[in-house]
């Protein structure tokens, strides 16, 4: 049976070139980068090169890249680190209702410690409104954190505008770019971004490694205490193979960015057009234009999404109901809910995410399977309109 993977936003396969660069660092070049001998220097050089490559992907300096265990740690560190480094009284954070749980739950943890958090609404297509950010800022605001692009509906936020508003108020601006990196051009200097979260496994690198970009001079407290790794800010012996893989993945992502965007966007638009043309009562959530190249989020009215997901899985097609965490907990998507989708449509929505190995044949096959399974499930749905 044909296997079609349309869940690149959950994770991506490690590219061969990436794996090839990683492999020597397990059993051959296994030195600790902190060690003062050849084994150590070799590892140190590899980590330095990776740091430069990751920095280049987002237009930062290598000294501003801090390796972490992944996107979740980066988000946690950004929120708790900035809040923890503020003078008493500067205890207000602004974020949005459609952030990843790594961010939302960090904010919830801050609230438990007595900080206040404002969660900005989004419009029906999933965009934060800059004027709403302006209104939410007060003299106690220490951090604004708005994701670069949303993981569920792909909405690319007006980051330059949002960062400018924060900058001009003297407030640190953080963005979770886990989904955006490798899919959109990012330049932290041009955009006025102070902090940015990255994850390797969303850009064809390994799992368990990510980074937080921290602009020079940004006030943030340390997150993991111990040795002097990562400029004494994030302790622990470096995950050298992971860092090397992340570096290679970042280098490939930067090099292939334009081709990737062009090819994936074309496939995405083809997929959306075919869904709308071939299957009745389908709607696309989010914007057609300001959307991540590989993201498709669709509501298949009258059918519960998890049943549809199961039918697709039986047919070898991997998709997702919103974020992976949500499909484990059976909670309706907080993103679609924030966009104001009626609850029955939230339950009827699926996310497909395309990537570098997706082909037109994959899309054709998926549409034909969807067509059959949607018909099958609608035939016995109590909500199907006669």
């Amino acid at each position, binding site marked *: 049976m044909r296997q079609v993977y349309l869940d690149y936003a959950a994770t991506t396969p490690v590219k061969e070139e990436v794996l090839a660069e990683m492999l020597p660092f397990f059993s051959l070049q296994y030195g600790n980068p902190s060690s003062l001998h050849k084994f150590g220097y070799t590892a140190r050089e590899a980590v330095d090169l990776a740091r430069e490559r990751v920095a280049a992907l987002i237009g930062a300096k290598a000294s501003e890249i801090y390796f972490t265990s992944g996107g979740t740690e980066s988000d946690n560190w950004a929120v708790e680190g900035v809040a923890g480094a503020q003078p008493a009284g500067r205890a207000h954070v602004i974020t949005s209702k459609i952030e990843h749980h790594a961010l939302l739950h960090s904010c919830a943890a801050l609230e438990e410690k007595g900080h206040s958090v404002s969660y900005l609404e989004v419009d029906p297509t999933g965009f934060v409104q800059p004027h709403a950010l302006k209104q939410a800022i007060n003299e106690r605001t220490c951090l604004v954190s708005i994701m670069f692009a949303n993981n569920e509906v792909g909405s690319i936020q007006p980051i330059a505008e949002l960062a400018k508003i924060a900058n001009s108020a003297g407030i640190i601006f953080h963005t979770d770019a886990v989904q955006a990196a490798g899919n959109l051009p990012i330049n932290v200097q041009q955009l006025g971004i102070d902090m940015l979260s990255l994850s390797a496994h969303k850009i064809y690198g390994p799992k368990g490694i990510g980074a937080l970009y921290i602009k020079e001079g940004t006030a943030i407290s340390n997150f993991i205490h111990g040795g002097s790794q990562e400029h004494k800010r994030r302790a622990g012996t470096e995950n050298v193979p992971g860092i090397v893989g992340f570096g290679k993945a970042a280098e490939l992502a930067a090099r292939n960015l334009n081709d990737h965007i062009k090819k994936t966007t074309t496939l995405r638009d083809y997929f959306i057009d075919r869904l709308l043309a071939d299957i009745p009562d389908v709607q696309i959530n989010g914007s057609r234009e300001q959307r991540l190249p590989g993201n498709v989020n669709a509501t298949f009215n009258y059918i*519960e999404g998890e049943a549809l997901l199961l*039918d697709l899985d*039986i047919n070898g097609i991997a998709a997702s109901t919103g974020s992976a965490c949500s499909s484990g907990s059976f909670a*309706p998507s907080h993103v679609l809910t924030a966009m104001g989708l009626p609850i*029955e449509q939230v339950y009827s929505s699926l996310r497909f995410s395309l990537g570098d190995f997706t082909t037109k044949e994959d899309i054709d096959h998926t549409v034909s399977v969807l067509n059959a399974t949607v018909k099958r499930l609608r035939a*016995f*749905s109590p*909500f199907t309109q006669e």
Partner: protein
Amino acid sequence: MSMYNEKVMSHFTNPHNAGTMENPDAVGSFGSPVCGDMMEISLKITDGVIEDAKFRTFGCGSAIASSSVATEMIKGKTLEEALALTNNDFVAELGGLPEAKVHCSVLSEQAIKRAIYQYAKEHDLELEGLKGFDPDAEFEHDH
């Protein structure tokens, strides 16, 4: 590998008794789109025996599979026998459901009770299995 066993998968991919019927003697439904699942059941009843049952379900794989076995199990049963069946009987018939999914089988139990309740009311029947049953009661329907 799937989160469900083969029997559940079989009832999901080929559900028995899916659809509606002409001139049903009783119809009941339970759940709501707000909860993410909803089942409607139609019954053909002759001399207090369920001759046929059909369902329509909006819900996940386990809700659909439970609907299928539940309608299968009540066919040929008297109203009292059908009322005595609980969601645990449907889960057992399916050979088990993942723990987080057991609640989905309650949908079938409650839809059957509501259909029979309606029928009993219309036909002035006193049924042992309906004692204390209140179709309008707030039902704990956790997710």
